[in-house]
């Protein structure tokens, strides 16, 4: 997280820690974690934890370890051999089904899914929250969870960011309606935060309540604007996938 602050898991109880590769995810109910496709690509059994602010061994020992039942990557996600040369992050979304239900509490809670009404269409200027243990201005990764508040902005802003990746040309990057651009100067998500939730306040409710508007996906340069998978476009797929895989487990 660039431009963020150290925080506690109680502020982001839906935050899931993916150990390798380091990444994030969003707990959406007792059995399902939403994350970015590129986090679980090639990893059918990711190691995950919830409920811990710190990534110290003793803390993780007390946290809940999540055991994977299956990983389901969105069918629209295109596999590529050279991960560093990827320029197309369209449909960067995946579901991880858990073997056992997650026990909720003060440090563990799901984040809401967006509803279908237009109230859940992210608009420029809407302020959202991101969190993660990814790279900061000073460190490759951090032990304590960090969070940041950042606005939704136009996709154009993201397109205009100067490319840093030598392996990719600026014009090669694919921008689609499945993406949200968010951030402001110095406030951004970065490597290691992928898959985490970009949380917007649920409209028309009094108490603070958040839904997962986006998932940390990619960006040309950390600390500028970042691209987030627009979850609203995948709600039908998410619900359908969960329903199809909610039958009795085979032991």
């Amino acid at each position: 997280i660039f431009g963020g602050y150290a925080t506690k898991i109680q502020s982001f109880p839906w935050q899931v820690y993916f150990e390798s590769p380091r990444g994030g995810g969003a707990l959406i109910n007792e059995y399902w974690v939403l994350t970015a496709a590129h986090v679980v690509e090639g990893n059918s059994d990711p190691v995950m934890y919830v409920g811990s602010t710190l990534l110290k061994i003793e803390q993780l020992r007390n946290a809940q370890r999540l055991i994977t039942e299956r990983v389901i990557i969105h069918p629209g996600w295109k596999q590529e051999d050279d991960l560093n040369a990827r320029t197309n992050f369209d449909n960067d979304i995946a579901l991880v089904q858990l073997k056992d239900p997650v026990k909720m509490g003060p440090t563990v809670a799901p984040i809401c899914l967006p509803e279908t009404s237009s109230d859940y269409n992210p608009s420029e200027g809407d302020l959202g929250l991101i969190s993660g243990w990814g790279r900061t201005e000073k460190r490759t990764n951090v032990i304590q969870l960090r969070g940041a508040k950042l606005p939704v902005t136009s996709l154009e802003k993201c397109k205009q960011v100067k490319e840093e990746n030598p392996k990719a040309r600026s014009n090669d990057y694919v921008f689609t309606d499945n993406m949200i651009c968010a951030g402001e100067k110095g406030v951004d998500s970065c490597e290691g935060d992928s898959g985490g939730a970009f949380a917007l306040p649920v409209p028309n409710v009094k108490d603070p309540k958040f839904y997962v508007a986006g998932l940390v996906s990619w960006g040309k340069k950390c600390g500028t604007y970042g691209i987030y998978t627009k979850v609203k476009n995948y709600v039908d797929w998410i619900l359908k996938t969960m329903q199809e895989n909610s039958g009795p487990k085979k032991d």
Partner: protein
Amino acid sequence: EPTMYGEILSPNYPQAYPNEVVKTWDIEVPEGFGIHLYFTHLDVELSENCAYDSVQIISGGIEEERLCGQRTSKSPNSPIVEEFQFPYNRLQVVFTSDFSNEERFTGFAAYYTAVDVNECTDFTDVPCSHFCNNFIGGYFCSCPPEYFLHDDMRNCGVNCSGDVFTALIGEIASPNYPNPYPENSRCEYQIRLQEGFRLVLTIRREDFDVEPADSEGNCHDSLTFAAKNQQFGPYCGNGFPGPLTIKTQSKTLDIVFQTDLTGQNKGWKLRYHGDPIPCPKEISANSIWEPEKAKYVFRDVVKITCVDGFEVVEGNVGSTSFYSTCQSNGQWSNSRLECQPVDCGVPEPIENGKVEDPEDTIFGSVIHYTCEEPYYYMEQEEGGEYHCAANGSWVNDQLGVELPKCIPVCGVPTEPFRVQQR
């Protein structure tokens, strides 16, 4: 040893008998014979009432004759001066003399012979109830057709005993009814009904005509009923003197009809039937009996259906109804079964919630499920109230028997994220 004949001579006969003599002869002839005792010579001192010297003839301890004086034959062709006939086979003859026989009386010479006795006519008491047949040395009794001679060999009766009635309804009458019943008989009948019935007798007054009681109220002919620990009668007279309906508490009855030698009445006729034993009608607010009757009796079968919320439990199996049969002992079968409130048992636990410990778990009880707030909420807005239903399940108005679900509350952080001001 009994003999058929014999001679008795006074002491010193034919010389003068001695003074102060008492001599006794015990005469015995065979059974069935009488004794013909006759004197061919009698010469004993005469005195008033034969007080000095005498010949006594004693039978059965009773002095039959006392003789003294002189006798001469009344018939020139017969030597017999005195003779007696006794219908008994034993006699005692006693000769007595006092202190003086100065005139030298010679005493007596007597003879006895066994003579046949006509038992049929010689005695006041008739020896046979019907026909008497005399023969030399005895007699025998005989009976009219269809009668038989009792073991006493004197009385005739009819063979009227032994009938056992087992049908639930029946009619019994005295022999020959309505013609005169036989005399000197004892008719024993038995009614033996199966378990579960009690005998009821019905006798119409006009169906009863038995020799009336004597002046002391004794019935010589009588009809008597004997049930378990109960006796009815003896009854006699013209017209039944007892109750027209006799309700016994027994499934068995012995009937005895006793007649004597006399009487020529027509007898009696009765009807009987088995009254099934009743079973109590047990009123219960928790059950319905089918069919419903004012009275239930032996062999009645009822279906007892528990009302809603009640069940009958046999072993580990619960059901809503059972059958009960009125038994022969007046008790219902399956009487230990009863409709009791359905017990829904301990409610099942739910994930991420709990159910309060119920005060009771029977029909109508209410329990509440709650979720672990604030992290879970109940999926159904109406809440987790369940009541114990008639089918033994905890039922929610919305969900039925389905358990409530506790759903994680989404999107609410415990501590809001605070942006630190720079």
